[in-house]
């Protein structure tokens, strides 16, 4: 196996995988429990411990049989994934087709630690559309090391909404490599609540004029959870916009990481890149590390990033209290407003409703 990346690698300076490497992971057991599937009227593909379960899946017109493929990304976790012939979805939407929604469910459970390495491929032809709603859940100690190879054809639109609610003893590392053609869009939103350690790493290449990437995320972490959202957006063509809003709410001893790099090639004039990352520390022991990065080789560009880390704004708390709202309620209102904003990029109603419900229950547990 390729070695796990260590903190000596610049891209991994904030995420320490030693707790992962300390565990010896076996092969996935046959899953015993069926997942409780969300009540969403969409076709679905359900994986239990990394294996496609046809009984629970509905089938999907554009799903092809899984076939291993070469990995293009250079992310270390993708390379490890490439060594293991894990199953995954293989979706091809023909040109001009609106394929609607597809649910991708991963449920993991077992008594002894195990690992699985799903390898997913999603390809949208010219002008095609797809909304993929991905749900990751599980119980026990396991490691899901997933990768996505995404190709969004000319003028196509791929919405990718992820809800990561893995077991808090589990590890989730997900690598996404997306090539986005001219006038095409890749809209990504990850909501991370689960895992002991998780890392979502996205490389998005904007390859044609007016290609668009939205790489958004929210992380709600408590206990000793560690959540890392790392992205690289490469502007390789003129006139491409990219947008990122990444919000973290950290309770307990949780640690959040956001690393966002925007690269603008010399050819990519009129690039419009915007990135905002905000973190709310709810406990004295929480920690947030942010590394926004710009690498720019074109002159006619507009790129900016902003980052804030802090506790709730006491001015705001006072304002609410001066209007009669008790302090505890005032704080709750402000935290929820913060999260509400995080969901703004989710433009798909059913997904948004699902996320809101999850936020509600997370909040109830804090």
């Amino acid at each position, binding site marked *: 196996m390729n070695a796990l990346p260590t903190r000596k690698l610049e891209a991994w300076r904030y995420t320490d995988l030693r707790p992962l490497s300390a565990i010896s992971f076996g092969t996935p057991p046959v899953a015993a429990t069926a997942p409780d599937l969300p009540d969403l009227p969409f076709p679905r593909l359900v994986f239990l411990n990394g294996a496609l379960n046809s009984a629970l899946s509905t089938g999907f017109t554009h799903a092809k049989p899984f076939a291993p493929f070469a990995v293009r990304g250079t992310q270390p976790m993708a390379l490890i994934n490439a060594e293991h012939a894990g199953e995954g979805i293989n979706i091809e939407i023909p040109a001009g087709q609106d394929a609607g929604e597809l649910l991708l469910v991963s449920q993991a459970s077992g008594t002894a630690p195990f690992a699985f390495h799903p390898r997913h491929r999603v390809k949208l032809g010219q002008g095609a559309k797809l909304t993929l709603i991905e749900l990751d859940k599980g119980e026990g100690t396991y490691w899901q090391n997933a990768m996505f190879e995404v190709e969004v054809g000319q003028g196509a639109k791929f919405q990718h909404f992820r809800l990561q609610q893995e077991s808090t003893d589990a590890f989730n590392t997900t690598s996404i490599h997306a090539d986005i053609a001219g006038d095409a869009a890749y809209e990504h939103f990850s909501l991370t609540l689960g895992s002991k350690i998780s890392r979502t790493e996205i490389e998005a290449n904007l390859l044609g004029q007016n290609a668009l990437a939205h790489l958004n995320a929210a992380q709600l972490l408590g206990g000793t959870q560690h959540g890392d959202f790392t992205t690289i957006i490469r502007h390789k063509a003129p006139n491409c916009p990219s947008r990122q809003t990444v919000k973290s709410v950290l309770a307990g001893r949780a640690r959040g990481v956001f690393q966002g790099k925007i690269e603008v090639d010399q050819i990519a004039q009129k690039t419009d890149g915007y990135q905002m990352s905000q973190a709310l520390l709810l406990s004295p022991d929480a920690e947030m590390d942010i590394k926004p990065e710009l690498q720019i080789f074109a002159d006619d560009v507009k790129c900016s990033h902003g980052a804030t880390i802090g506790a709730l704004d006491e001015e*705001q708390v*006072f304002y609410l209290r*001066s*209007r*009669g709202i008790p302090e505890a309620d005032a704080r709750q209102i402000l935290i929820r*407003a913060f999260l509400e904003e995080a969901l703004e990029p989710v433009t798909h109603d059913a997904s948004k409703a699902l996320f809101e419900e999850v936020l509600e229950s997370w909040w109830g547990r804090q």
Partner: protein
Amino acid sequence: MLEIKNLHARIGDAEILKGVTLTIPDGEIHAIMGPNGAGKSTLSYVLSGRDGYEVTEGEVLFNGENILEMEPEDRAAAGMFLAFQYPVELPGVGNANFLRTSLNAIRRKRGEEELDAVAFLKLARGAVKQLAMKEDFLKRNVNVGFSGGEKKRNEMLQMAILKPHLAILDETDSGLDIDALKIVAEGVNTLRDEKFSALVITHYQRLLDYIVPDMVHVLAGGKIVRSGPASLAQELEASGYAGLEAA
């Protein structure tokens, strides 16, 4: 009735209020004027219970109750309302939701029944209309992206809905054009009755053309240095604050 008795307050090591004494009976509107740095904003923040101000001496009674030990939300429930000089932005918090939460928190504390969404919206829409505001005001996030005038109008909207017994207007007129000024004045004037009182803090006399006070006090160097009828405001406008600070 608001009674401020020999109030001393400091921020850190700096004493800002050095013995303010002032009584505002029910039904009256008093104005406090004074030069920059006189302690006007400090007075309003001490009255509304903001952190960072240490009261070293004196007391403040509101309807006979010492409010200095009360939390800001309890002061609001008791019927005090501070219109902020710089209203705070609350991204992600809808105006309507904010107002209803406030109103119901206050009603709950007073043992009154909470308003449901329908009843509240009716009330809020009425107030919005009365203040000549667009209805989308209620849908927007609290003060986010509001112009200076809109923020002040929003303060008046809150005041109209929360119906306080005592309103403290902290330089609410600063940065307002004449139309907005009139709206602020109207916001206060419509609440005027024998139960309602207000403390209008302002640097300029012009707001007092629209809200005619029963009394005018001059705050300088952390003390009330002069008090008089409404005409005192005009006098100050003409002669300025010079000479008063030494008093």
